[in-house]
């Protein structure tokens, strides 16, 4: 005998954000670095961005923390990026490197 059960995951919220598809090719363009606050993330990501820029003919135009200010809890890896930083990055650069982990 069959039984009907409910789905435990439920619906996604309206406006839930999903990952965008990967870009088919990276050619040229401006590159930004968004330091996510993990140790040495800025160093690692900047070097990676410079390497990427050399490969695709792009340019690293902005390196920033999540608050746009240096130091303090606002740039900690566990805090969200301030919206004005995201907005300005989205206007200034085409590619953002972010998120080194432990």
């Amino acid at each position, binding site marked *: *005998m*069959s*039984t*009907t*059960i*409910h*789905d*435990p*995951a*439920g*619906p*996604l*919220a*309206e*406006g*839930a*954000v999903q990952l965008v598809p990967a870009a088919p090719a990276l050619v040229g363009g401006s590159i930004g670095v968004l330091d996510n*606050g993990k*140790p040495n993330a800025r160093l690692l990501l900047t070097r990676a961005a410079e390497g990427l820029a050399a490969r695709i003919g792009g340019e690293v135009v902005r390196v920033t923390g999540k608050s746009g200010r240096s130091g*303090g*809890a606002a740039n*900690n*890896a*566990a*805090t*969200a990026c301030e919206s004005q930083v995201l907005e300005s990055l989205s206007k200034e650069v085409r590619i953002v490197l972010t998120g080194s*982990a*432990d």
Partner: protein
Amino acid sequence: MGENAQMGEGLHEIDDESPEGLYAFLAEREWGDGLPVVAPTEERVGVMLAGLDPDEVLAVLPPRGGSATRRAVAVNAVMAGCPPEVFPVVATAVRALGEQRLNLRGVNATTHPVAPLVIVHGDAVEEMGFNAEVGAFGPGNRANATVGRAVRLVLLHVAGARPGPGDAATQGQPSKYAYCTAENRAADPWEPYHHSVGVDAPSAVTVHCGENPHNFHDMESDDIERILDKAASAMATFGVNNACISGGEWFIGLCPEHAATADAAGWTRDDVSAYLFEHARLPAREFRRQFDLLAWAPWMSDAADDELLPMTEEVGNIRVFVTGGAGKHSCVIPSWGMTRSVTLALEP
């Protein structure tokens, strides 16, 4: 088990409700916590909902962005084995998880083992059958065990906090299975915890995202300072996130006998917090030697190397409640750090 069919949004038809069949159904979809569950049939979920609006959204939970509707939460409460009468505690805890200041996105994304601790306060403790006495952190009591588990199942399914893609904890911790206790009002010499944080209701629920409890014991003292020196020693360590994130809270779970010793000496809950703030300290130099990145309050960053600094930036971050039974063991519960506890009045 034969073929199972999806019957449209939110429902599945399964042909084997045995524990083994249900487990296989869940495992195929990467659902469940690894333990057997109760089948969330329409009848059982209906009883859990108790006639309330199933589509009411209690919270939106990251990283999945799942909508924690009352129905979805009830489904997970059924799966966890909750008796229907404790469902308001699960629902209130889920509301707390959705509060911005709790930072659930970070709680789920971090490599730290953090788990949300649910603390039940007030009349609900006795009325719903929670254990606030011997073994209050479990096991052996259905309300404590299943509420803690239901919250975890909501995180796994609705929030998408599966180890790996949705929960990055390097090692995890046992309290990620179930983490629920209750305040022992009968043995508490002070006002109820939830009143102390401004929630004026007969019952309430606190969610604190932290580590497993760290035990300390003092069998011998009738001197509250000698007892709390042991708590301070358990707090003053570089091995917790509170050492490098000064905004983190501490929850201090005093056993009834330690609380009675404090009360007999004329100490209030705030006196206990103040003592720990003053005595759980380490030299600024040592913090700086241990950490390259310190998310500290500015006044701590300005401290001279020889200054003794507390394990949190303000005394109000040390939160004291009474739980447990006979015996002289208490605990300190460190925070993950970038999170604030939330206490809400119990609602259906």
